[in-house]
């Protein structure tokens, strides 16, 4: 086996990104869609930190990963508030049933 390098980390983040995308596309429940978004944000963070370690960029990548984590926290709070309101108004959180704007 080859020693672990940049490519290994990139492959992991690619697979994590694909799984997050799969969750977003296939899941009906809005909370599960949010989990997919979190997976995608994590894979982006792995990329940032891997390039900050193996490229010659100093510590900027790690800082950007920190910023992404902060934004993920804000996003999760807002999105869950919206999901709660959807549940209160329509008593469902399935994203395919929330189609009032269609008709």
């Amino acid at each position, binding site marked *: 086996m080859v020693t672990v390098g940049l490519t290994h980390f990139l492959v992991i983040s690619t697979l994590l990104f694909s799984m997050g995308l799969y969750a977003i*596309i296939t899941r009906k429940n809005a909370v599960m869609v949010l989990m997919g978004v979190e997976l995608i944000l994590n894979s982006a963070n792995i990329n940032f930190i891997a390039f900050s370690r193996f490229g010659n960029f100093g510590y900027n990548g790690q800082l950007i990963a920190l910023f992404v984590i902060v934004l993920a926290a804000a996003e999760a709070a807002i999105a869950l508030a919206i999901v709660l309101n959807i549940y209160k108004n329509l008593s469902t959180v399935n994203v395919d049933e929330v189609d009032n704007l269609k008709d």
Partner: protein
Amino acid sequence: MNIYDLIFYLFALLTLVSAFFVVTNKNIVHSAFYLLFTFFGVAGIYVLLGADFVAIVQLIVYVGGILILLLFGVMLTNKITNVEIKTGTINIFSATVGVGLFSGALLAAVLYAPWKESALQEAAPTTGILGNLLMNEYVLVFELLGIILLIALIGAASIARR
């Protein structure tokens, strides 16, 4: 194959397997708990990349904050009396094909790109360095993020209470 590689493969396996269970499990609560292991694995990968502070922040914010928030979301949006909290799935076939093609293309790009790797320096504690950067070069971003977080939390509370 040294100990670093062994630990890397361990964390990679943990991350990918638990992420696979997250996206395939029918029960949302089980998915949330598998997500815990995914976050732990990603934190381990951060440590292997020499980002100790980011790894700790990942554990505190994701596992301690976001995951709890997601679990609250699951609990509040289901009838608490029914134990089986299922999630339906749609578009399975087209999603599998599309995501498979997409990840194949991405993997090919990652594997065949001629990445230039600079020489690795010894991994040092990063907390002080990150603090200095945050207070000097990135102070505007830091302040803006603080304001965004405040506004987001106030907005979330006021939306959820309505």
